[in-house]
């Protein structure tokens, strides 16, 4: 019970910081507490959060997925190239193609026992090249299909579609972690892979599923970005996204060592990073300084949540 309370209070720590920041900003940052700005924050947040949800599961297995940014670019490129065949085929192919990269990541990690950081580093490098090749060798591909653009610009019952997608993804992730077998398997595999295997957990299948899900979600984020831009830019889409996603996850309280995960924490972590970025932007703090503040916040959050020394 005691441990549980400590874990809960840590989760609330990030939330408390978020609440304080929002309150301070509402008081001192002009135009912060306006409806349009809040929607703006949520819109900016959506792709990062969607990627960070997949990353939460990957990190819970004790791994890391550096390839998400490149996979975003691949998803956007596939969709842009196939757009003339119809939006359903284009989007479907983008999601399936990206998930296959995730399956590749997961299989190499699970079956060949290569470290996640090396495998996904290789797919980060190779994937960015692949995205450029798919885009007719590095072209900026504009997309004008109205239905596709809705993914990034449309809204449904006053809620922007990207925010809606992020909400659905969050709900699914929470459900998967708490109520589905895969959630148990992920935590078991991340806590102690050998013990999990010996007690009958299909560790390999779990890892492949998790990396495939991470890539799938990255592709969703890539499609949102492409729809918002009205173009697939294979060089730019998703660049450094892996760092933002990892930051959101660890600030939210999921341990890099694996075996623990909190989807709600990731949502809080992503929100926290976005509120900071937006408010610094509104206060006209130079970009470089807002980067530095971001770095400090990551360190402080991880420092506060570190486990006690054994």
């Amino acid at each position, binding site marked *: 019970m005691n441990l549980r309370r400590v874990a809960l209070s840590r989760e609330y720590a990030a939330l408390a910081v978020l609440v304080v920041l929002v309150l301070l900003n509402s008081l001192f940052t002009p135009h912060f507490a306006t409806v349009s700005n809040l929607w703006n924050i949520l819109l900016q947040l959506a792709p990062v959060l969607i990627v960070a949800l997949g990353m939460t599961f990957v990190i819970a297995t004790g791994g*890391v997925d550096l390839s998400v940014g490149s996979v975003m670019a691949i998803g956007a490129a596939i969709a842009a190239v196939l757009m003339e065949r119809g939006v359903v085929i284009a989007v479907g192919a983008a999601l399936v193609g990206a998930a296959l990269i995730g399956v590749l990541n997961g299989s*190499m990690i699970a079956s*060949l*026992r*290569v*470290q996640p*950081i*090396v*495998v996904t*580093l*290789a*797919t*980060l*490098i*190779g*994937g*960015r*090249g*692949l995205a*450029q*090749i798919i885009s007719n*060798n*590095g072209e900026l591909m504009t997309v004008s299909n109205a239905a596709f653009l809705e993914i990034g610009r449309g809204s449904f019952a006053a809620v922007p579609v990207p925010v809606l997608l992020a909400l659905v993804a969050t709900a699914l992730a929470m459900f998967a972690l708490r109520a589905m077998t895969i959630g148990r398997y992920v935590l078991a595999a991340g806590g102690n892979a*050998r013990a999990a295997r010996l007690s009958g957990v299909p560790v390999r299948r779990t890892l492949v599923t998790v990396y495939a899900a991470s890539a799938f979600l990255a592709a969703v984020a890539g499609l949102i970005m492409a729809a918002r831009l009205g173009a697939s830019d294979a060089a730019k889409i998703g660049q450094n996204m892996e*760092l933002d996603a*990892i*930051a959101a996850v*660890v600030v939210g309280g999921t341990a*890099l*060592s694996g075996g623990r995960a909190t989807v709600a924490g990731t949502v809080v972590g992503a929100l926290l990073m976005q509120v900071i970025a937006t408010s610094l932007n509104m206060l006209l703090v*130079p*970009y*470089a*300084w*807002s*980067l*530095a503040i*971001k*770095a*400090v916040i*990551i*360190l402080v959050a*991880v*420092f506060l949540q*570190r486990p006690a*020394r054994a």
Partner: protein
Amino acid sequence: MKFLRHNGAFVALVVVCIVGVARYESFLTVENLSNILRQNSMLGVVALGMTFVILGGGIDLSVGALVAVAGVAAAMLAPHNALLGVLGGILVASLLGVINGLLITKARIQPFITTLAMLIAARAAALAVTHEQSVNISGDGLGWLGRGIAPVVLLLILYAGGWTVLRHTRFGRYVYAVGNDEDVARLMGLRTDRIVIGTYALSGGLAGVAGVMLAARLGAGLPVAATGWELDAIASVVVGGTLLTGGEGGVWRTLVGVLLLGVIFNLFNLDGTISPWWQWVLRGSFLLVVVVVQSHIRPATLPS
């Protein structure tokens, strides 16, 4: 098999060179070979520092940003005095490396997160100090450092030094001990914190050397220089055969890894028909293949 196990990357380098000699007339020329060495000298210096960190069981994602910080610092100080520029650049990067080490050992924040934050913060500092502009080095006090034979000689001297430190000093042995099992090393009475801080200081300092070399070569300190070098350095170390889990590997392997990736890149260029995008795909695939092969010829040393 045992020979392959320890020299896989070297065999691959020889094979790739034979392919180069057979297919491209211009491969085996003094000009081309010295070009390969010069172009890879700065990455090689960064990868040398990364080798120490990885041998000690850590990882340093901040090296690319530290290269930029050192280059900017050197460019800003060089007008006063060329030597001051060189030393200042190296010192600043070393200090940031020490901060990495302190955060990892004293604040117990994982190396991955610490150096990720340092990557962001150091890049931010470089951008803020320069107002996102490159800093030109007036005069030519530093130029020699980046041109001609100097970068190659410096590279070889630093690797010889790195090898001596690893093989013939107490610090070197302790790095292996900490990388193998930090708890055991601590129980044996080693001051593991100091050793870990030492590896990050070394990595920072060598990134600083590379930053000064790069600034000298370009004639300017660029706040956006060396973006992504951390990934290239890690790839070189891993391809060379140093295990990411720490405790096994060495500096010459890293040099072989750097040269292997460099020669492959050179062959792509000599060929001229392979688009840069395909080069990325091939680099990624190559990294995967090498690591998979390594994990299969030495299964005993990988965690199950």
